[in-house]
């Protein structure tokens, strides 16, 4: 990855692997308004490549809103106005020259509720590669589909029924299908907005395992309401409160030794 390395030593304690030091997405002074209502107040945050970053915070604090800035999904909400700069590999993604469609093929997204297309499992995965022309010919497409499903740990469960509708899978399988769908367009960043909130503990564990595997190849950002989940899967954690970034650092440090008292209160379950 050719991410631009910047000096963030002040806000970030030193890390064991130099690879993780690379910044993939660098957000600076982000403000988001929904109409007149401000949802995000001047947030600056740098997200590392090949690591999992989790966003935590009480409901309505702007985690989803901020996440959606990273792949410009807020563009689809008419009332939403985003200001500030977000650099991905050094390029400002809010620049006019950057097409959001191109951006979204590099920044995949997994939503809170599994939302497979009402098509076959195969077509769910193949859709992205098809529209981006990532595979030429049936043979290659088959390979892309298989590898995406393998990476999402779903291949063994669905290999015999690729033509079955995606909606016929269980909730957990559907969510993994959505992850596979995101992986299939070979993104560099994967955004996940509460990917496990609709799943049971076993399916959740399966997804967490998967996130851990994917970390080696992608830059992953996950929004979660579960402290344990944040602690389990992420290397970095950001705590949001009322549209502001309160604290951002190594997960271990945030959970064991938070600087801000609000963070302390939140992770110990005093509010939120």
């Amino acid at each position, binding site marked *: 990855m050719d991410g631009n390395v910047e000096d963030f030593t002040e806000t970030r304690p030193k890390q064991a692997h130099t690879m993780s030091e690379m910044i993939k997405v660098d957000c600076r002074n982000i403000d988001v308004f929904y109409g007149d209502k401000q949802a995000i107040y001047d947030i600056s945050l740098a997200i590392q490549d090949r690591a999992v970053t989790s966003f935590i915070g009480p409901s309505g604090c702007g985690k989803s809103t901020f996440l959606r800035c990273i*792949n410009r*999904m807020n563009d*689809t909400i*008419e009332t939403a106005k985003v200001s500030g700069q977000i650099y991905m590999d050094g390029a400002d993604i809010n620049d006019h020259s950057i097409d959001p*469609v*191109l*951006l*979204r*093929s590099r920044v*995949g*997204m*997994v*939503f809170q*509720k599994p*939302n*497979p*297309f*009402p*098509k076959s499992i195969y077509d769910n995965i193949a*859709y*992205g590669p098809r*529209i*981006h022309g990532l595979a030429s010919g049936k043979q290659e497409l088959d390979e892309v589909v298989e590898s995406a499903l393998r990476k999402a740990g779903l291949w063994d469960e669905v290999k015999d029924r690729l033509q079955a*509708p995606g*909606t016929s899978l269980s909730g957990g399988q559907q969510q993994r299908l*959505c992850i596979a*769908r*995101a992986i*299939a*367009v070979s993104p560099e960043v994967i955004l996940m907005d509460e990917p496990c909130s609709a799943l049971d503990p076993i399916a959740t564990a399966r997804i967490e395992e998967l996130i851990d595997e994917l970390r080696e190849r992608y830059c992953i950002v996950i929004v979660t309401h579960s402290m344990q989940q944040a602690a389990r899967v992420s290397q970095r954690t950001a705590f949001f409160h009322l549209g502001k970034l309160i604290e951002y650092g190594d997960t271990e440090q945030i959970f064991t030794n938070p600087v801000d008292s609000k963070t302390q209160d939140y992770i110990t379950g005093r509010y939120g």
Partner: protein
Amino acid sequence: MNSPAPSPSEKGSFGSAAAMKRLKQRHRAEMRFKLYGQLAIGIAIVALVTLLISIFGQASSAFSRNVLTFDVRLDAEQVDPSGERDPEAIARNVSGFNLLLQDNLAEDFLPGETDRARLRELYGMFTRLAVLPIARKTAENPEIIGTGQEFRVALADDIDLYLKGGVSERKSLKLGEIQDVTGTLDDGIDVTFADMKAVEDLRSALETFRERSEGDNQPAALIQLGETWFRLQDIDGRTASLTYLAGASTMPAAGTNASTLVLEQSEENRTVSDRQIAWTMLLKEDGRVKSVFNTSLFSHSDSTYPELAGTAAAVVGSLWTMLVTALLAIPVGIFAAVYLEEFATKNRMTDLIEVNINNLAAVPSIVFGLLGAAVFINFLGLPRSVPLVGGLVLGLLVLPTVIIASRAALKAVPPSIRDAALGVGASQTQAVFHHVVPLAAPGILTGSIIGMARALGETAPLLLIGMVAFVAEVPDGPTDESTVLPVLIYKWSTGAERAWEPQTAAAIIVLLVFLVLMNLIAIILRRRFERRW
């Protein structure tokens, strides 16, 4: 479990007395509501069934038709006086063919008759244009001229109606053998019946009809003796005096079997004369008059005579009109809906457009007719009475319906599907056309077909653009003068003759069949689209 066992007082009761009472009230309210619902559905079903029964009851007689079969040699002198074998001239030579038919009938029933009124009575069993199909057939195959042919012609509507049980109440009775005959056919005969009981039956039938009818109406009795029909003049004891009506002109012999047809209406009060009835009965006994399926209802175009009128031109006109309507309303409607729902930014302008579309859907259809007449005919100079203009007017009429239905269908597609598509990097257009529109397709389709069904049944706007013209030819294209089914129904329903009534009902059934077919297509398409997901 370690919870204590319930005390006996609590056993079997889930709540306090007050709670039970409330529960009972709630159950009663639910029952009441269910009853209201069932009542509403019951009323709807009764209304529908009544409508269908009355239409089918009226139409049933229009689906069969009485025709006369007659053998004739196509005399070249009569059929093609010019001798040029010009198909158009032959087809137009209705009088020539009529003469053939009339001579054929006169030979059978009134040989050597010179009384014009009597002949006219015989010829009146057919309308002048009844031979038109024969003329056309001959024109198509001129080689049959000069050969003997068997043809079928439709009986006049009144005779047809009589055979179907209309015109007058009637009763048929067997009178047994006759004992004695005196007199002559010319001056009237006296007949003595053997069976007193049968004569009593005849008397009582006459009496019942007389009591039932008002004014100075006198029931009539026609008596058949062998091959000959008589009119009953007077009856005294077992002896009746009869006058000759029609049939074999030989004196009936003693021992001949007699039967009678008692008619409630006197001859003056009927559209069919005694003699015409007698001729018809003779023809029927011969097997020359038969009831056949009324194919002309589907194969003929409009006519001033109900027995010759058919829906063919109107059906084809309706199809052309629907084609134009569909080509205008469906694509424009769907694209407008997709644009408004998926792409347009919500602002004053789109709000205004939305309000106006909703208003437009409620505009009375006749207003669209006025608009069509003003814009398409007066301003753009398109011809009157053509499916092109009719289709354009109806297209504008159903456009709002299609837009509203399509927008509702698009709105019903969950936003998560759009997010999913955008999330993998599909453009707005790709998300809409790859995912949203296919998911909304069943709804869009249903809306479009409902709109088309409405257009198919519209009458008022088409009257204003002149599609009510009399059209005797099946239109060949959208710029040919034509009419449509609902307008035809409207026209037929205003016809003066009784025979238009079943004809109208039959045309209504044709229209209903079309509507059912369209809805069926909608259901099948919807099933197919839905199964793909």
